[in-house]
């Protein structure tokens, strides 16, 4: 079953002979201006995100990186620059199952998370950070000049792709904050404040109204909530990994 009918193609104009361009067409509509042809893949990637963000209102959409340890999910909500993509990528490289680097798709009636593993677009200095963290990381080609800067994609592992239809249950909610030079510090977060921050990081909170209010409230009640300041990826991953190990042994708080 298809969700969207997408064509990435060149426009039919004379310019194609001089500076070739590329269009993203979804269900017969063209939501974006044409981009230079060499950026076809990043455009496809963003186009997919656009499709989901503008239409997947069947779900509550969290702006979050999401990974799973077994069937227990760790949700890393954050605005661009918070380090959620980089952190999700690093956790994934250390064996966590990738659900998504960008979307936490929650079924409001069940509260579980649906995976959507795709290449993780690493931007600008994140690329070097990940290569330093794991020189063997499987990265795609470099797109030097996209609208969001320099981009390379990290390939998700086979296990994440095979499990892409298996939902995960939220267990930890960690609000990451990258701060250059800072020591890693993982602090418990008050549930009321967690509610406020999670609602803020929900794409369709206003649109879903009461449904989203209840789903966010249920989620912060069911999980352990933290803020996490970090600067060194290896230590950050170690600390969150330890949190996951402890959580799997112990019960819910």
């Amino acid at each position, binding site marked *: 079953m298809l969700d969207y009918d997408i064509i990435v193609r060149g426009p039919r104009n004379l310019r194609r002979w001089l500076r070739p361009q590329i269009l993203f067409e979804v269900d017969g509509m063209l*939501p974006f201006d044409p981009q230079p042809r060499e950026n076809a893949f990043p455009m496809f990637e963003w186009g997919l995100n656009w499709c989901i963000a503008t239409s997947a209102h069947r779900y509550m959409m969290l702006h979050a990186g999401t990974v799973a340890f077994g069937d227990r999910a760790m949700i890393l909500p954050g605005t661009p620059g918070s380090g959620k993509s980089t952190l999700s990528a690093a956790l994934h490289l250390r064996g966590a199952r990738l659900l998504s680097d960008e979307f936490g798709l929650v079924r409001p009636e069940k509260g579980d998370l649906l995976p959507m593993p795709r290449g993780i677009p690493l931007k600008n200095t994140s690329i070097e950070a990940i290569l330093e963290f794991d020189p063997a990381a499987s990265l795609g080609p470099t797109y030097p000049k996209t609208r969001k800067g320099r981009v390379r994609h990290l390939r998700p592992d086979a296990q994440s792709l095979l499990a892409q239809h298996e939902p995960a249950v939220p267990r930890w909610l960690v609000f990451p904050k990258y701060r250059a030079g800072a020591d890693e510090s993982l602090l418990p977060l008050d549930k009321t404040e967690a509610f406020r921050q999670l609602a803020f990081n929900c794409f369709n909170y206003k649109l879903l109204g009461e449904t989203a209010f209840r789903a966010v409230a249920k989620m912060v009640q069911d999980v352990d909530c933290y803020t996490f300041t970090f600067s060194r990826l290896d230590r950050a991953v170690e600390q969150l990994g330890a949190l996951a190990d402890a959580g799997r042994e112990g019960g819910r708080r």
Partner: protein
Amino acid sequence: MNLLNCFLKDPVIARDWGVGEWNCFLPLARNARLLGRSLALFEQHDLLDIVPQRLIDQLRGALAQTRYVQVQALRELRQVARVLEHEGTDLMALKGVAYLVADLPPRGWRNLSDIDLMVPEEDIADAERALLRAGWQPSGEFDAYDQHYYRAWMHEVPPLVHHNRETEVDLHHNLAPPVSRIRIDANHLWDEARTVSDPYGLTVKVLGPADMLLHNAVHLYMNDELRGGLRDVMDFRDLFEHFIDQEAGFEDQLLKRAEVLGCGRPLYYAVSTAQRLAGLRLSVDFVRAVQRYAPVSAVAHFMTWLIEQALAPSRLGLRRSAVAHQLLFIRSHWVRMPLPMLLRHLWRKALKSKAPTSSIQETPG
């Protein structure tokens, strides 16, 4: 005739669909903004058990969005009504927002991107000023030419939007541009208007039932944005079926008003299109009566072909439908304004760059 239109005409055909048909149906329905309407049709025909779960999810998602936009639209209407009531200006809701406030059938599924309102022509300048004072502002950059285009030639002022909110307000004084071939005396519309209220104390006018359908017809006849055109055709069918149930002698009323307002030709196109593409069932007498407004047969056939290519292409992105869109775009302007004005206008439009689309910068990730 494409799969979506076959479905709109006779929803039970979906019982025989396989993956191929479902995969063809979803993009067509989304493009035509008929996802919410389709969900209602599946429900009404007891077909929910045969629809793939993934598609149900898409349809419910679309309906959730529609519900939100509807709340925003009614809220915007309430805000505008409050300002204009203070000014003592009569206010009429049109199209989507009128169906909402008058609680007509499209309310169950109708999406809308802006609210269309009408005030008497002599009050429109004051109404616009009052809204500007109360926090609304032009929704985009309108240069001197655009301003002239709206104020001198069109039946509306440049669209407004409140600085705290997102719903665009289109303020009209008529249903068709004063320079167009269809000249409607707006006084007739106000004479037949009905007053509706919602539970929160909002009171506005809406067009009388026949006029409401004629407005839909004029819109189909003149509109240059054909995407969503099929949704308007479905509105026509839904409203027609509703009023024929509710209003005694509705067909006669419709014919009479078409005569009074000079909208016979648009009525002919709307009726024949709704019949062909949306499965509207009509009495033989009514079809015969409307036939008198048809153009000469060659034109009628060509228009039938054009409308079908544009509103119901067999596949999305067909070049044939792109050509049909272009022709209808030119035609919509042709009926809107006299030739010299049209040429000048198209020339200006060609010089200006096209309307901006969403920026990739704003996409997640």
